[in-house]
């Protein structure tokens, strides 16, 4: 042993000898096996919540969304720009209750008619068969239904909470929620023109024909308002810039029946599934209408400080 080591020392020196010895020893050592997955599973993180120190933006706070700007979608004759506000209070970070209210087109001081309405005004025709439905094509814009406002009482459920990164540079806290409740839709439509007898039969008030065209014209511009009760369902994505400011992106639907065009579309005796006019403007001319809209709003959370989870 001594002679071998002595020869080695003389040849390459001690450091090399030591390295050689270590290298020889290393070949004897078996490669340790990795049990990283076991470590992580059985380690102190097992059973722990996914997120620690999470800022809870909702619990025990009043969340104001003001202004809440919305726009109705898939309108056939007239679109509505909704301006309003929303107030939500959350009992937990998942559950809350809220109210929403908005006015359409700034109290209907403006009109946002669709291209179809414009085309009907320009190219529509009045004949003996559609005189009640459209007495005058030039005034068609005065007979279509318009949304005046919307109010809702709803519950919110926010199961998803997370973050997003924008261009891998900006990071924003987010949460996703659903809401459901009841909505009151304030609708202004073409006025109905019937009287109902005691036995339930309905009779049109006035006759609308070529000889009584003025009566038809008067019925075209007569308006009446009503409140339609509708279910409200929606989803939303909140982006939180800090503990008290954020941005809300929402979609909400509130389907209900109405007569969007003011036509005499139904109520008559139908020989097929196609509805037949009955010479009256009443609720039988209503058809199911899936109203829905998108909203954008600025979130203000009160109090400004949010709680932080363990």
């Amino acid at each position, binding site marked *: 042993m*001594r002679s071998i*080591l002595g020869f080695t020392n003389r040849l390459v020196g001690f450091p090399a000898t030591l390295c050689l010895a270590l290298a020889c020893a290393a070949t004897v050592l078996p490669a340790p096996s990795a049990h990283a997955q076991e470590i992580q599973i059985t380690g102190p993180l097992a059973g722990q919540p996914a997120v620690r120190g999470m800022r809870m933006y909702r619990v025990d706070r009043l969340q104001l969304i003001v202004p809440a700007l919305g726009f109705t979608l898939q309108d*056939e004759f007239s679109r509505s720009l909704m301006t309003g506000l929303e107030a939500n209070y959350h009992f937990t970070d998942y559950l809350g209750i809220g109210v929403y209210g908005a006015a359409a087109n700034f109290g209907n001081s403006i009109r946002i008619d669709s291209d179809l309405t414009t085309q009907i005004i320009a190219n529509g025709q009045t004949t003996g068969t559609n005189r009640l439905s459209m007495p005058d094509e030039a005034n068609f814009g005065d007979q279509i239904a318009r949304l005046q406002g919307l109010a809702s009482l709803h519950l919110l459920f926010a199961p998803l909470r997370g973050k*997003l990164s924008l261009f891998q540079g900006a990071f924003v806290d987010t949460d996703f929620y659903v809401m459901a409740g009841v909505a009151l839709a304030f609708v202004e439509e073409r006025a109905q023109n019937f009287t109902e007898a005691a036995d339930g039969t309905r009779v049109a008030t006035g006759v609308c024909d070529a000889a009584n065209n003025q009566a038809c014209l008067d019925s075209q511009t007569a308006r009446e308002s009503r409140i339609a009760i509708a279910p409200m369902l929606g989803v939303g994505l909140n982006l939180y810039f800090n503990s008290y400011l954020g941005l809300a992106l929402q979609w909400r639907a509130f389907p209900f029946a109405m007569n969007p065009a003011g036509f005499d579309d139904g109520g008559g005796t139908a020989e097929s599934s196609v509805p037949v*006019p009955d010479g009256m403007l009443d609720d039988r001319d209503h058809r199911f209408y899936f109203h829905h809209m998108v909203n954008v709003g600025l979130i203000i959370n009160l109090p400004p400080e949010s709680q932080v989870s363990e």
Partner: protein
Amino acid sequence: MKKINTHGTPLLEIESNALGMQKSPPIAAGKVRGLAVERSRMEKAWNVLITGCLFGMLAAAVSTGTAFAQNSDMDFTSSSDEGADAPAAGDDSGGGSDMDFTGGGDSGGGGGGGDLMDDLIGGSTSDATTDTAAEEVSEEISEEIFAVQQIYALRINRVELVPSVAFTLNDPFTSHTALSIGVNYWWTNVLAIGANFLWYEGLESESDLNFSVRRGSRLSVPISEYQLGAHLNFTYVPLYGKFAMFNEFIFQWDAYLLGGVGLMNTRPRAVIDPEVRNFDYDLRVAFNVGVGIRVFVSRWLAIFGEIRNYMYLERLEALDVALGAARQDTATWLQDEVAFTNNVSIHLGATIFLPFDFEYQLPR
């Protein structure tokens, strides 16, 4: 459950002490030796040192079969039970194991006479350290927690299959429902090139509004119907995020932009003069832009929703009907001007990434 130290630091400390790297054999002070005699003694010392290195490493190899660096086989206490509790502090009996690093007597660590092996290995001076280290091994918890986690589902160099159903959002007269299949190749983690194919024929339907407008206003709205569409697209992912559900489940999602060009096979539907007019499908160049969101269910499966606007120039049915023989002339059936058409559709479907799994080249 055993507390596991993944770094093995105490083990390394023990080894360093065992090798006695901090100590060297002393030379009696005050004595002057001849050069030859000194070299001989130095050679002897180095030989012993090297032998000790080999012996120590061999001892480590025998005992360290896995990465469980704690008091399983290397028992520095009187108890040789595997998985035994941490040895009591100060217990330096060291009995029962072949590698007895506690030595005899010396508690100060070190210096001078006595058994050279003990001196080199670190004898009694490492007793407290050994015991303490053993205690630390059994109690120390060092989990590998990384500040930046690896992305759960990579897209780079993977192929994405995208079956979906498309519904028209902005056409109140005709619903252009379609079945769609797409394929994308991600050459980076945020950029992809791909194609998608849509089939419309047989799935479209005319709405009640069209009939109601025709009857109420005597106005027919010209409409068109689609047969198929084929598009090439680029996709870019600017947003990537995570959601935690009930602070228990985490899933990944991303939002993307896409755009491209393709072809659509469309034709007008005869509503002005359906008794005479009959149109054939024709190809039209279409551009599309869209935005979508993808939620990963697993590393290879995700669900997605996207809104895409297919834009093209459509030839619509002529609003006027020629009289007489000209009514049969196909040249009078179409409008002179083309109509810029936006078919805003929402796609809902699933996305499948191939291969199903992937591996990172680097551990972190």
